[in-house]
């Protein structure tokens, strides 16, 4: 079973993603509330996939991706954002983000994104 780390400052999104992932047979191994926590939990938990929000307090998603990729260049990161602009997408791609997923999302979008990275 693939292990997933969720990094998002919204408890609602955590809850929602967890439900989608669990009913599609993925294990949520960690919930981080900001990028800094996400980087620390990545190092501790070594998840197969990271779902990363962009706008978060303490440390933003793109900064966290940079640190995760420096630590583990093979890290699989799916970026989740309500903002779908091309500039952000390009920046994320440049940092090594594997899939840039626009919110809102449903089961199909989440599972398709995961199948692209694993």
């Amino acid at each position, binding site marked *: 079973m693939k292990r997933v780390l969720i990094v998002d400052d919204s408890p609602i999104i955590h809850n929602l993603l967890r439900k989608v992932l669990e009913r599609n047979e993925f294990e949520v191994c960690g919930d981080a509330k900001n990028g800094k926590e996400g980087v620390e939990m990545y190092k501790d938990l070594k998840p197969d996939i990271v779902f990363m929000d962009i706008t978060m307090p303490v440390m933003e998603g793109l900064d966290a991706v940079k640190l995760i990729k420096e630590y583990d260049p093979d890290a699989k990161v799916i970026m989740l954002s309500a903002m779908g*602009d091309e500039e952000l997408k390009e920046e994320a791609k440049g940092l090594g983000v594997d899939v840039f997923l626009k919110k809102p999302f449903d089961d199909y979008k989440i599972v398709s994104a995961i199948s692209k990275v694993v």
Partner: protein
Amino acid sequence: MNEQELAYHRAFTVAVSEVMGTMTGFEMEEDEAFFTPDEESFDPKETQPCEISGAMVLLGKKNCMATVTMTRTTASMLVSYMTGIPYYELKNGDLFDGVAEMMNLMAGRAKALLSDSEYHFDISPPFTIVGENHYIVHKKQAKLIQKRFVSNELSFILKVFNV
């Protein structure tokens, strides 16, 4: 309706439909008969009661505020459908975060739709305003959008106005 109002009107109407349809399964339709009180005639009795508002600042050529306002009952139903948590198990924090997240998703989608236009904007993190029978009142000239969306017994008001 000027060009900016028209652009925002189109983008936010699509955003509400997509976000609510995908995240909650509700088809929220615009209430064409919604009366929009203006500054001069504003009377709280003429507006629907509201208890929770999600809000965001839209930073662009002209800065705006976007708000989505609803009753606790509507928030409970929408957040319950979003998360799969029964409405009677939702805590205050779930409702406040859920309404803020709805605003975040709508504004984010509208931002993406307007990203190539002259009315593109950046968005602030969302926040929530809570209190029984609160009103969000702005200058009449500042109004860009004021719409009521309904689905059966559920409804909310979406506003975007210059600040």
